[in-house]
Structure formats: structure tokens, C-alpha cells
């Protein structure tokens, strides 16, 4: 087992498992920063996983497929925003509706497009390519990790930086945070909270759709029924644990990805699989514990100073 843990394959597995969670965690953080919990991530990812396959196959290349999927993801975000902001639906219930619609809707769509109910194997898919970086590729060990990843994995890391800059260095990012912190205060200085939350949810949908696209166009090369398998919810937890910041979400997603990859390797040992399957969830619990303990200490220190 140790040799498996020290091979580049293990680190590749971590990055692979991290990518979809990371996109969704970023999606969750931008929505949370604007004051809305986007629980529809799961449904958006599932829809996007199918859209990715369909659009890529229709247009004949993955790039336009990805763009169209991002547009579709943004539209689902818009739909959620419409229900929550215009119709004043409870944000959690609207999200549950979208998630339920995704479970049945993707099967219906897949049936209409491919005649299959279980998986999209009859559609020839165009997945995002792996990127080989010259020179870096040749570094022993490290090169096999830094290079040769799926394009979407690199994009997810770029997205962390972009989202960080967006939220903390741009006027729009400031407005999003202002609305999330205190809607009334933001309104009082002339910010339209509705407009800002619309933008945040659409952006959230676009980011989640990129995670969904990766599921069927990189991780796997086909869509299979219910393939999001709870990743959207895990991402919600990752984002919350990371304090709803892009960088925090990245670190926690990486931790979750590592826990999942470790659990996968551990199944090769004699340890009962029931215990191993607890590893990702145990990590979440421990992580949350440490996070809230650290938060408590910080508050205590502040209190002492005051």
C-alpha cells in the first residue's frame, strides 16, 4: 500500500477527485458570499454532466460543448435566482426541486437523445484533453503530477485565483460581499441587492456546470445515471468549512479529494471496507471540529484583548 501512496498515480487520483468538488465549492462560495445557500449544486452538476456530453457531441468538439454547458448552467442558476428573488420561494426548497428535476430530467433527456436510460454510451463524446506541459513534464516524479492533468483540473485551479481576485479585488466582488454581509446596509448605499444576487447565482451556476462537465468529459467519458452521486453536497460542506472563501474552499476540497483517494487505495488492504468508507466522512467531521475549535479560540482571544 505504501508504494501505491508514494506513486504519482495517487496524487493524480487526488487531483481528479478534487476537481469536481472544487468547482462546486467555488460555486457555493460565491453564492454564499451574496447571502444565498445554493443547494442546487448537485442538480446543476448532474444536468451539466449530461449537457456536456450532448453539446460536445452536437458541436463536434469539447470546447464549444463546455461553453454551451456553462451557458446552460448559468441559466439554471438564473432559474433558481428567479424563484428565490422574484417569487420569494424558500431557497432550499427551490434547490431541492431542481435537484429532483435533475434526477428524472436527465434520464428523460438521455432517453430522448440516445435511446438509453442508464448511460450515454451510444453518444460519441468529446472529452476535455489532458494537457502536457513541456519541460515540466520531464521533472522526475513531480512532472507526472504537475503535467498531464485534464484541462478542467488546471481550469479549476485557475478559477480559484480568478474567484479570489474577483471577490476581493473588484468592485462587483465587494458589492457581492456587501449584500451577503448586510443586505439593508448595501441597499442603503444604492446597491441593488436583487441584481447582485442574480449575478452571484448565475456565476454560481456557471462554476457548478464546469464541475459537472468534468464528470462526464474527463473523469469519465460518458454520462451515467445519477453520476453526481452527492458531490454537490460534499462541495457545500467543503465551501462552508473553508469559510466560503475560494482559497479556503480549495484547501478543503483538496483535503476531501485526498481522503477519497486514500480510501480508494485503502480498499486494497485487508482493512474492512465498511471502516474505509467512513474515511471521507470522518475527515469531514474532524476537519469541521478543528475549524470550529480554531474559530472559538480566535473569538476567545479577541474577547480577552477587548
Amino acid at each position: 500500500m505504501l508504494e501505491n501512496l508514494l506513486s504519482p498515480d495517487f496524487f493524480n487520483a487526488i487531483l481528479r477527485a478534487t476537481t469536481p468538488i472544487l468547482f462546486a465549492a467555488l460555486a457555493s462560495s460565491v453564492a454564499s458570499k451574496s447571502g444565498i445557500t445554493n443547494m442546487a449544486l448537485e442538480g446543476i452538476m448532474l444536468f451539466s454532466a449530461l449537457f456536456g456530453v450532448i453539446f460536445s457531441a452536437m458541436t463536434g468538439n469539447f470546447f464549444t460543448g463546455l461553453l454551451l454547458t456553462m451557458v446552460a448552467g448559468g441559466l439554471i442558476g438564473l432559474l433558481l435566482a428567479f424563484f428565490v428573488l422574484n417569487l420569494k420561494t424558500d431557497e432550499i426548497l427551490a434547490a431541492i426541486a431542481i435537484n429532483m428535476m435533475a434526477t428524472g430530467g436527465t434520464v428523460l433527456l438521455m432517453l430522448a437523445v440516445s435511446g438509453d436510460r442508464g448511460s450515454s454510451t451510444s453518444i460519441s463524446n468529446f472529452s476535455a484533453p489532458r494537457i502536457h506541459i513541456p519541460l515540466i513534464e520531464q521533472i522526475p516524479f513531480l512532472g507526472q503530477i504537475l503535467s498531464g492533468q485534464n484541462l478542467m483540473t488546471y481550469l479549476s485551479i485557475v478559477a480559484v485565483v480568478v474567484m479570489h481576485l474577483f471577490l476581493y479585488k473588484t468592485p462587483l466582488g465587494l458589492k457581492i460581499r456587501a449584500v451577503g454581509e448586510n443586505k439593508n446596509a448595501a441597499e442603503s448605499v444604492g446597491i441593488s441587492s436583487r441584481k447582485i444576487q442574480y449575478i452571484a447565482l448565475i456565476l454560481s451556476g456557471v462554476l457548478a456546470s464546469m464541475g459537472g462537465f468534468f464528470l462526464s468529459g474527463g473523469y469519465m467519458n460518458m454520462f451515467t445515471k445519477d453520476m453526481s452521486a452527492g458531490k454537490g453536497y460534499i462541495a457545500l460542506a467543503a465551501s462552508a468549512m473553508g469559510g466560503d472563501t475560494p482559497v479556503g474552499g480549495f484547501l478543503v476540497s483538496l483535503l476531501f479529494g485526498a481522503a477519497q483517494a486514500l480510501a480508494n487505495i485503502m480498499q486494497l488492504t485487508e482493512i474492512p471496507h465498511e471502516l474505509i468508507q467512513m474515511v471521507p466522512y470522518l475527515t469531514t467531521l474532524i476537519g469541521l471540529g478543528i475549524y470550529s475549535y480554531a474559530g472559538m479560540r480566535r473569538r476567545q482571544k479577541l474577547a480577552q484583548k477587548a
Partner: protein
Amino acid sequence: MKKVLAMLLVFSMAFSMVACGGKEEPAPAEEGSNTPATEESKEGEETEAPAETGSGDTYRAALLLNGTLGDKSFYDSANEGLTRLRDELGADVFDFKVEQMGGQTSDEPKWEPTLLDYCDSKEYDVIIMGTWQMADPLAKAAAEYPDQKFMFFDEQFDFAGNGDPKNIYNILYKQNEVSYLVGAAAAMMTTDDSGFFANIDPSTKKIGFLGGMDNAVINDFLKGYEQGAKDIDPEIEVQVSWVGDFVDSTKGKDLALAQYQAGVDVGYNVAGNAGLGQIEAAGDMDLYAFGVDSDQAALLPDFAKNIPTSALKNVGNSLYRAIKLDLEGNLAYGTTEVLGFAEGGVELVKDAHYEEMLPENIRTKLDELEKQIINGEIVVDTAIQR
């Protein structure tokens, strides 16, 4: 605002129901007489439509699916077996109707009422259904309608616990027997040093198994697989990984990749859709994975070169056999029968693709083993209390 929310929920429920019913899209396999009614018209029609044509001596069967046709597995197989029987005997001797109840959680509430409606209509000599989810509705219906005959496949019916009903014939499959052959084939492949398999390293005697959830049926697959492999070479190590569900194909792929990277050359996926992950992993690594429940080499042409063959439970054959026996008056209702190779209840796909994928010595050995299982020389262990 509540109204809007309610509308939204209704819309989403309707959408998901239509999705799993999928009845507006007639699958190519379906044909005239069993074209399913749409959701709404169903209740009205089923009591009257078939009655006119039903002359006194036609044997009529109703196949109630807690899923839909087009699964390319159990349900299609059941439909195929009944269609074959009707074509053979003629529709005036045997006829059947398929009712697709849908397989999603939101469809569950209508399974039992549909079953009871069918019992109530008294138009069918036998009502056929399968899988563990139908066990409870069946127990209820069988007690309520003691004169109605039922067939129940792929899950053990608890006769003793339900007042020993004499109107149910229960069919189980020896997935351990067919898995024995898969295990033997996998063991012969991973130790093959003839160079037939370019990417197999005969020194690592490891084969893999990807299970969905750790339950009795999946363990039955595993038991047979392990026994088959060890009978070929006792040193073979079987790496077992469990997905934890039947849908997470990405996790299935990661688990399988971890196995292949640890020296496994041949795998066996018994994990539903999650098992497709193992097949993709085999494709990525240019290694092998055996298929299950449907002819996956034919279904997944992109990965056919990685799938030597598939292990099938032949639901269609078993129903064909049962109804023929029933027509002769020889079917033992009130009992459970476990069908293996001898009765055609399970099979390993042996087509041109199989002959191309496996060298002759392996195929000959598999035929030999199959014969030994049929004549009882080899008894395959089981994980199921029968």
C-alpha cells in the same frame, strides 16, 4: 408564494415521473400488444382492453416491471423470453402484457396498487414480477388473492414468513456458477504467459472485483469468482473493492484504477452503473474487465476490446421455462427454484467476440468447467442461505 412553490414541486415531480416512465418513447424491442398505456389512461384501460380478445383457453401473463424496458438487462431479458414464447406458441395459446411501473423512488407508491389492480382484474393466469423491492407488495397480494398465480424472480421469497402461500413460484439464479467461470477465465488470463494478452504481466497473480454494495447477491458473485480463480491457481489474489452504491461511476473508476495500478490485470464489475467506471478504467489502462447482467461488450463498442465476455442471468429463459412447465401443469407453485447452467438460468456470453478475445485453450477449459458444474463434479460455494 406558496402556490408557486407547490406548482414548482408538482412540475418537478411530474417531470421525474415522466422521465422514469418514459412511456411516450416506444423502445424498438416493444411491440403491438404490449405497448404500454400512458400513465393517465392506464387505470381505465387495463381492466377492459385485454378482456375482449381473451378467449377461454389462452394463457395470459402480465409482466409488472418496477422499472422500464430498455434497461438492456433483466427487464429486457424478461420481455424477450416472453416474446419468444408467444412467437413459438402463437398468441392464441400464450399472450402477455407488460406494465412498466417505473423504477424511481417517486414511482414506488404505485407499485402495490398496480399489482392489486392486476390481481383484481382476474384476467391473467399469472402475474410476473421481480427484484427485492417487489417482495412486500407480492406477499400482500398473494395473501389477498389466493387464487391468483404469481411468478417472482431474482429475489428469495420468504414463504415461511408469509403463511406459506401456494400461489407463488419463486425463481433465483446461480450467479455464483457463472461467476465461477468468470473467475476461472480471469485467473487463466492473468497467468497466461503465451503473449496472447499483450499488456498482462503473468508474474503478478492478481485479479480484481468491483462490487456495488456488500449484500448477499453481490457476495454470491464474489464467492463464485474467487473459487473459480483459486481452482485454476491457488496463488491468485483477488482484490475486492466496494463502491458503496450502484451509481457513482467516477468512484468506480478510481477504485478500479487503483486496482489496476496495483498490479491487477483483469477485473469483474458487479456494481450497476458504477461498474461502468471499471470498464472505463480498463480502457484507460488497456487491460480487461468482465461484464455483467447484459452483454456489455456489445453495448459498449468503444470498450469491447477490454471486455472479454459478460456473465448473464437469463431471466427470459427462466420465465420461458416456467410458463412452459405451467402450461404442462408441471410447475411447482409454492416453491423456490434456483436455476444455474443446467437449467439455462445463467450463461456466459459465447459469441464471435468472445472467441476473438480469449485463446482456444482458455475457452476449452471454460467449456470443460461448465460441463463439470452441470454434471455436479464441481459444486460452487454460495453466499446465500437456500
